């Protein structure tokens, strides 16, 4: 990147706020941090270059004979590639092993999140906790059949509704078994379109159980096991499917069952949601188990009164990362920022407590918190920090509300310790969030006619050119938010509707793309017209990164609604992670590719050092699964690669030309189905 190429200066180099981010509050807070001499990720990105060998994906440190590094010469290799590690491992093997391990780590992260949710749900089903309940019984009844749990019973020859508690227990036990069962494949695979299931079966990549696929990768990437990049990626695929169609999907569903399925709501986004005269609590991380309780605790009269007693006007809760998305989607709690803004929330000086659980939490938060009164509270047994100022309050779902209140109280007590120098940026945006598979269906036609066909019809008639999923993280090696926003704007300008999750969704919210009004400003005429008709923003917020499973299911619904082929790979659709950084993104990317989606990553991919392996991902995958990987750092080119793919699919479907108005006589009408 531009900064990385500059010669190092003598004094510690600082980030140029205007180069670091396109977002005003971020720029302001970087300036403030620098003024206060607090180092942030943006500064470190300038002073520390990424490892050039690691970037290429060909550093092997899987045994103590290494690390072996097999960099690809600048001009590439003419003729035979003779690069080898000590054991003889080729660049392809090393890159594929590293890539597979990223998938394993990503899948493990999502799925372990899913496991915690499933464990909590089991506690609910067994009535071991009073703090969680079943808020969306309809969703429970909807998913029960996939787990082989009956939703009706025969009583005296009559079919009756089965007791909800019984269904819950059945589902909870069956769901828990998904992590370790033997002798079969994952229950949710059958939710995919049949041709896709057939493809997986033919390839031998049907996941057996969630944990096993992760363990399998760790085993086969051990020194001297699997040394065929194609075979490695087969397992990489199987493990990724265990995430997308397994752990993550179960996580999303059981969260919906316990906390309610999202439906559209109005909220705000950005650091400006923090309030000077309120106790500001920021929840950060990924699992909604704790944050759900913190929301409830913050809304309790007891805590509000306590905050007032301590001189605050109330409690302002905000989120960072996917925890933010979880409580935004279900409660309208506004996100205070995305991944790269986590330090900045503390640098406002107005953050009484930052409560974190798992994934994407900077260790540097502790160093930043030290400069202020902010309490940094870790809550997860597997996620602690070495710094002494970090408070650990372990969260136990059996005493959920008690723990939550303890945390909130700690934050309120800390209000009086706030320093005089605070600065909350004024920037915040309104947004409409809370979309999900079910609520999109409703909004495409109401209680009586809700149907994804409304969407398909407008894709077929060309008003909507295609569907894009733009998801993923921020990355301090790219200009904060720029790629997300440039790509999304370019897509909607070309009539491609965007589904978004994770930090990408927070970014879209911060930049005003989640408002219905943005359609008229940024969209092509066709998409603008559809947004106007349905009353939706051109970019739909589908939740956290675990909720990428919602995109898979939405795509499946689109296939089912008809008129756009028989499989996800037939759809005029593409995926993107413009500013990715986490291993979870690689797992997500692979399950999208293996589900038939053309998936483009921004920044770079750690495969450039092994061109043959790279071609396997960028070309061969399409022949196997219908989807493939690609990488394009330039956001405009990135968007147009997606659009070109969408156009290719439109052509294959025969919908690349304007649809004629067909007038129907009785015989034509009788040929129409009624479903």
């Amino acid at each position: 990147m531009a900064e990385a190429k500059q010669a190092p200066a003598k004094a510690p180099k600082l980030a140029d706020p205007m180069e670091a981010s396109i977002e005003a509050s971020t720029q302001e807070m970087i300036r403030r941090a620098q003024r206060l001499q607090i180092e942030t990720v943006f500064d470190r990105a300038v002073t520390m270059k990424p490892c050039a060998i690691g970037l290429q994906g060909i550093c092997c440190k899987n045994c103590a004979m290494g690390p072996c590094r097999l960099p690809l010469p600048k001009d590439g290799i003419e003729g035979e590639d003779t690069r080898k590690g000590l054991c003889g491992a080729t660049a392809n093997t090393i890159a594929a092993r590293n890539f597979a391990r990223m998938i394993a780590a990503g899948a493990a992260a999502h799925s372990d999140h899913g496991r915690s949710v499933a464990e909590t749900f089991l506690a609910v089903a067994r009535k071991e906790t009073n703090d969680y309940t079943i808020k969306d019984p309809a969703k429970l009844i909807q998913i029960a059949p996939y787990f082989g749990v009956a939703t009706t019973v025969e009583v005296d020859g009559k079919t009756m509704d089965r007791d909800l508690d019984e269904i819950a227990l059945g589902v909870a036990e069956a769901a828990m078994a998904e992590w370790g069962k033997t002798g079969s494949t994952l229950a949710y695979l059958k939710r995919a379109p049949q041709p896709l299931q057939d493809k997986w079966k033919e390839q031998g990549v049907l996941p057996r159980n969630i944990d096993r696929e992760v363990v399998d990768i760790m085993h086969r990437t051990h020194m001297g096991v699997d040394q065929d990049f194609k075979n490695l990626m087969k397992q990489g695929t199987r493990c990724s499917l265990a995430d997308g169609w397994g752990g993550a999907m179960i996580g999303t569903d059981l969260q919906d069952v316990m906390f309610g399925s999202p439906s559209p709501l109005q909220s705000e986004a950005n650091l400006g949601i923090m309030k000077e005269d309120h106790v500001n609590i920021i929840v950060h991380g990924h699992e909604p188990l704790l944050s759900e309780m913190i929301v409830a605790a913050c809304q309790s009269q007891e805590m509000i009164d306590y905050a007032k007693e301590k001189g605050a006007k109330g409690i302002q809760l905000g989120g960072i990362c996917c925890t933010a998305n979880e409580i935004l989607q279900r409660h309208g709690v506004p996100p205070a920022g995305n991944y790269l803004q986590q330090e900045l929330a503390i640098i406002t000086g107005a953050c009484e407590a930052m409560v974190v659980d798992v994934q994407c939490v900077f260790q540097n938060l502790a160093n930043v918190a030290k400069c202020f009164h902010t309490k940094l509270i870790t809550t997860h047994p597997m996620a602690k920090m070495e710094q002494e100022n970090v408070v650990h309050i372990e969260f136990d779902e059996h005493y959920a509300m008690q723990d939550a209140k303890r945390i909130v109280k700690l934050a309120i007590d800390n209000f009086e310790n706030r320093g005089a120098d605070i600065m909350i940026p004024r920037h915040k945006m309104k947004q409409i969030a809370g979309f999900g598979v079910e609520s999109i269906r409703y909004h495409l036609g109401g209680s009586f006619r809700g149907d994804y066909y409304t969407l398909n019809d407008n894709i077929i008639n060309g008003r909507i050119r295609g569907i894009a999923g733009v998801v993923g993280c921020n990355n301090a090696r790219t200009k904060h938010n720029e790629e997300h926003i440039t790509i999304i704007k370019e897509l909607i300008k070309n009539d491609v509707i965007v589904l978004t999750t994770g930090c990408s969704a927070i970014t879209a919210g911060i930049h005003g793309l989640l408002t219905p009004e943005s359609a008229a400003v940024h969209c092509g005429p066709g998409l603008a017209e559809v947004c106007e008709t349905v009353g939706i923003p051109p970019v739909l917020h589908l939740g956290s990164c675990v909720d990428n499973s919602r995109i898979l299911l939405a795509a499946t619904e689109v296939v089912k609604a008809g008129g756009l082929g028989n499989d996800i790979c037939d759809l005029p659709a593409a995926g993107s992670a413009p500013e990715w950084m986490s291993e979870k993104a690689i797992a997500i990317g692979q399950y999208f590719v293996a589900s038939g989606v053309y998936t483009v990553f921004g920044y770079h991919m750690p495969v450039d050092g092994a061109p043959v392996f790279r071609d396997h991902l960028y070309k061969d995958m399409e022949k196997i699964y219908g989807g493939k990987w690609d990488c394009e750092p330039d956001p405009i080119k990135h968007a147009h690669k997606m659009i070109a793919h969408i156009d290719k699919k439109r052509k294959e479907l025969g919908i690349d030309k304007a649809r004629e108005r067909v007038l129907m006589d009785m015989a034509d009408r009788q040929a129409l189905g009624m479903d």
Partner: protein
Amino acid sequence: MSRLVAFAAIQGGYKVVSQVEGELERALKSYDASTKIGFGNTAYYLPVIYSLTGMKCETLEDLKKPLEFARGLLPPHLKGANHLPYLGPLLDAGMAGIFAYEIKEAIRILNQPDYYTFTEDPDVDAGKIWVGPADDTILRKRGVEFVDGSAPGFAAIVGAAPDAETAKMIIEDYQKKSLYIFCAANHNGKTAIEQCLEAGMQIGWNTRIVPFGPDISAAVFALGFANRAAMAFGGVQPGDYRKMLMYNKNRIFAFVNALGDVGTEWAVAAAGAVNWGFPTLADTDIPEILPTGICTYEHVVANVPHNEICQKSVEVRGLKINVTEIDIPCAFGPAFEGERVRGGDLFGQMGGGKTQCTELVKMAEMSEIEDGKVNVVGKDIGDMKEGETLPLGIYVQIAGREFQPDFEPIMERQIHHLINYIQGIMHIGQRDISWVRISKAAVEKGFTLKDIGVVLHAKFHQDFQKIVDKVQVTLFTNQDDVDKLTARARAEYKTRDERVDTMTDEDVETFYSCSLCQSFAPSHVCTVSPERTGLCGAYNWMDCKASFEINPTGPNQPVKKGKVLDAKLGRFEGVDEFIKGASKGAIDTYNFYSMVQAPMTTCGCCECIAAMLPSCNGIMTVGRDYAGETPSGMKFTTLAGVMGGGASSPGFVGHSKFNITQGKFILGDGGLLRMVWMPKMLKEELRDRLNKRGEEMGVKNFADLIADETVGITEEEILPWLQEKGHPALSMEALIG
């Protein structure tokens, strides 16, 4: 600008639901909660509510639940900026409005029982121009036209055009396109129906201009009609709202024309109609909703000029209409079939007891006739003075490589409706008892008798392409020629009748299937034999044969009788095999001549339904035009609901009127002599044939032995009467067992 539409419709939803809540509360204060409410003779309760939710509203009390349901559907009001999505809420608000409107109409009918005439045609002279909801008799008669496509759809017109001339232009255009025009609501107190009357048009179901009511709430009758058609003919189950609405979207091609300012009360109705896939076209500047999805094409189109609204509406709904452009000075189409030429409008007439009027179709050699030649031999209209009469002979000669003499009566039967299709001309009767009445309006436009020939030539070619190569028409108006033609025709009729009347099931090896209604009653397969005409009354064996010859892949397919499995009950191996396949395994056998054991399946289209009356050891039958109670304990509509939709229901069978006096009518159960009750109307219509068939079976004046509603409408009431008359059924072997 969909947001404005959504805003208005949601406002309208709140307004209408609140209003109706008030009305219901008042009604509950004035009447007992158990007071009966309803739309008259219908088995479908309040049809929109019943069809979409399964709720049966029979009393005032019953209205509370659907109204609460409507209240529950009302979405939050829309915010100005950063609003939530509104398409779903808009459609829900629309549906809430429609439910409330239906309840409002039920309360109106309770409060003002005489507000509507509940008839096919209004009583214009008495100033009662609103007919209100169609009863099931009208539904069954007219609904079939939506089923078979002879009515391609309907235009729901709300409001009024700027003037009567414009209203006439629009509505007549729809008539020419064979659409029904369902009218409701007023614009500043003026209605399109009043404008039609002002312009001298005839209104009522018979001319397809249906005056439902003067308020927007009456528009709900159009939706109720559509949903009842889907239940009666489409086999859609009450409560299966999704299928119901998709059925409407894909089968019933209807749309709304909003003439006048669209306020919130109209907006909510229009939003409701979108749930059905019915778009709205307005003549005012309202926000448009052009993207597709819920409707086939656009949802709301605005600012449509009056001279384009018909064409545009048809296009927006995606409706293909094959309008026959026939070179005559008058408008032409099925919508004019029911139009009358009354005394005051009459210019002149032929037949009808005043003079002789005869029709005859004969096959000709190809070389013998000239295609398209129409000869008027004798006086024509120009030679007549107002009020005069003429004799008339209509002689049609048809040649064609595939034409057969058997097709002559089929073609001849077309003459009646084809002449009726001409605007301003009325045709009654057939054969040698025809009657043609010509209106002053038609003559003013330049109508001559030659135009009858032009119409027959054009339509015979169009409708019977496959068998017709040449058509020549001669119209005689000299007494001598007419007499000669009549004498010849009568000889022809006699030969034909004998051939058809004497034809038995044993005479033929092939029956014909009829799956015309199958897309509506999926497991129903009619099989038509010479002695069991189609239960809709429209198709006899000969028709099916002709239909097959005309269209070999059409709905009428030959079915080899094969081995006779049961001669008494009428079960045939070939037929069983065929119906197993054609019903996709739903039905594997049925009997032609029994209603007790595995009777033939019945769709919603049957002319009559027979039902067992066990204590009388006999059966009854009831035609679909009889609205009263019957000794079976059920009205026709209830019976049709119980056993229509393609089910084989032992103890009941659907059949045509004509079939009652055919030789094989329930012969396996004892035949016509089992008949102990019929509505008087039907009995009188068939009296001669009943007596004739009775005599063949050994009973004289059989019609006098059959009870009717004047005797009683329960088995207990009619049994003593039957005993007194010595009805033969009472001494027959037990019907069951």
